[in-house]
């Protein structure tokens, strides 16, 4: 009993001292609560469907950030991982009758394999070469998919896959909880030693190599990790939509991911997730404006970039928080002195 009280007190202290003091952390907590409590307030199937899809794509955008944002390996073919995950899960489900909780991880392992296969030739390339080369891989796979219609269903894709779960609410919870869990894992990865090395590779690969770190191995690791998370989102998508079609491999899919991630702000993980939660429902909101909605979407992206070239969320965060010049701890912008070292903030 006293143990429970101890943990409650600890939780309360953490909330008071670490969460309430920073608006960005409050927003994250509110975001978690909102996603977890949404079905309590509404069971509108349309709303749940949008948020399920948004959660699935948020995993995808965050996984792009893990690879391209953190290690700086611009990947223009992220749809490859998504498509391999989706097709892998669909094929396993249709032909081997494995239930979704088995097919999604195995499909994601297929994406890891894809990450290894494209990672090995791509590691010799840098910058723009890499970006333009990776664009090719999903298209090559799409050609193969079209050339083998018996196995992959060709243009129509593989349909009639098992449902993710029995009910809409369960579907929603699977997607949302997986998203929150995986994004926390990704955020933790980028905060760990490995993440610091990823970040260092982005800034100056030569210096990292000079420090005795095998950068090739770390870049390959980034490809595999990113492939795994993107593969999971692909598998979830296939089981949620109950179809895995060539649209998962399209160029526009790859571009979409890049737009989400850069719009939200790269090298953050939370940026791409937030961007998907802004842009995807926005696109749905514009549905009564069918013909104009993609145009409006492109316009919004162009205009926001003009004013916030580093992305929306880092810009917002800089507006509401300042960094202490002495101890580098973040504070609310309205404070005069740092909350830890009491140095004056300017």
């Amino acid at each position, binding site marked *: 009993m006293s143990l429970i009280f101890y943990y409650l007190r600890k939780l309360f202290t953490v909330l008071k001292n670490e969460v309430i003091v920073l608006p960005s952390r409050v927003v994250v907590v509110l975001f978690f609560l909102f996603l977890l409590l949404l079905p309590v307030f509404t069971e509108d199937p349309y709303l749940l469907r949008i948020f399920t899809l948004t959660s699935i794509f948020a995993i995808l955008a965050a996984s792009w950030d893990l690879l391209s944002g953190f290690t700086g390996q*611009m990947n223009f073919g992220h749809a490859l991982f998504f498509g391999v995950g989706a097709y892998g899960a669909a094929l396993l489900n249709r032909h081997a009758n494995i239930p979704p909780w088995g097919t999604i991880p195995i499909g994601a392992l297929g994406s890891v394999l894809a990450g290894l296969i494209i990672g090995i*030739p791509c590691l*010799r*390339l*840098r*910058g*723009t*070469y890499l*970006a*333009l*080369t990776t*664009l*090719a*891989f999903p*298209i*090559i*796979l*799409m*050609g*193969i998919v*079209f*050339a083998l219609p018996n196995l992959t269903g060709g243009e129509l894709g593989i349909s009639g896959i098992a449902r993710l779960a029995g009910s809409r609410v369960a579907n929603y919870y699977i997607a949302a909880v997986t998203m929150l869990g995986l994004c926390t894992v990704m955020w933790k990865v980028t905060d760990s030693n490995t993440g610091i090395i990823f970040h260092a590779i982005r800034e100056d690969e*030569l210096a990292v190599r000079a420090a005795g770190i095998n950068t090739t191995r770390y870049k390959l690791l980034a490809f595999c990790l990113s492939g795994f998370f993107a593969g999971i989102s692909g598998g979830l998508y296939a089981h949620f939509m109950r179809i895995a079609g060539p649209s998962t491999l399209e*160029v*526009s899919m790859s*571009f979409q991911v*890049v*737009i989400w991630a*850069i*719009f939200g702000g*790269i090298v953050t993980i939370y940026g791409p997730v937030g961007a998907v939660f802004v842009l995807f429902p926005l696109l749905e909101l514009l549905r009564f404006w069918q*013909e*104009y909605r*993609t*145009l409006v*979407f*492109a*316009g919004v*992206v*162009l205009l926001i*970039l*003009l004013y916030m*070239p*580093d992305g929306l969320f880092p810009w917002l965060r800089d507006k509401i928080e300042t960094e202490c010049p002495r101890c580098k701890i973040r504070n609310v912008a309205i404070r005069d002195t740092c909350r830890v070292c009491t140095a004056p903030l300017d």
Partner: protein
Amino acid sequence: MGLVLNIIISGLISGSVYALLAIGFSLVFGVARIVNIAHTAFYMVAAYCIYFVSQKMGFDPMGGVAAAVVLVTLLGMISYKIFINPIREHEGAVLIATIALAIALQEIMLLKFTGTYLSVPSLVKGYFLILGVKVFYQQLLTFCVALGIMAGLWVLLMRTKLGLAIRSTAQDKEVANLMGINEARIALITMGISVGLAALSGAVVVPLAILEPHMWLHPLIMMMAVVVLGGLGSLKGSFIGAFILGFAEALVVFLAPMGAFLKGSVALSIMILVLLIRPEGLFGVSFEEER
């Protein structure tokens, strides 16, 4: 024999179109370090512009070509000034700005002309026979015009003062600036030339192609493959790479079963194989300081 000739014709035509596109793309990348995804979107806009001027307004097709090139070049320079120039330091932002621009252009065309397939009649009618294979005059014209434009571009780059300025900016921006070259203006002019080339390739290809708002995607991918294969910033590389991939596509389409589906895959696989052996492309200059 007819098959071989067909492959040669088809390879030469798509090769020369890819070469025109890739040279423009590579030029603006070399000078301004912009990866312009919207490059082929301008090509699509030019094609629609010709359709509109010659079919809807009833002007001469040649007038349509001239109007398209001028208007699209202006459009390219204006959008560069408004959307790309202010964020040029942010590489990622430029990237999605050009993607968003391409999507916006596609959507505008979709609104204006709907998604139905359109076509433009040939500028010159008729054909002649070689070994029993029909060669349309339009195909011959497309090929010759493409070669002519490339020759003109070569003269511009190698024999004029502007060309010298463009080449020196591509080589070293800072030093070019110190030598009194207005780098910002050269970037704008290069963008104009590059978009103009895209418009011209749209103009020469439009009688042979089907117009639809998504027609920019396939050339975009092939153009990027050409540029990577030939080596970024190398015009000679783009030229040779374009014909390699053009012929690869033609061979697959005519010889392999299900070839139409696989043509992109095979061309891109060739690019990846070359990159495995030569990571900087066939004629790539490796930018040492950027590594």
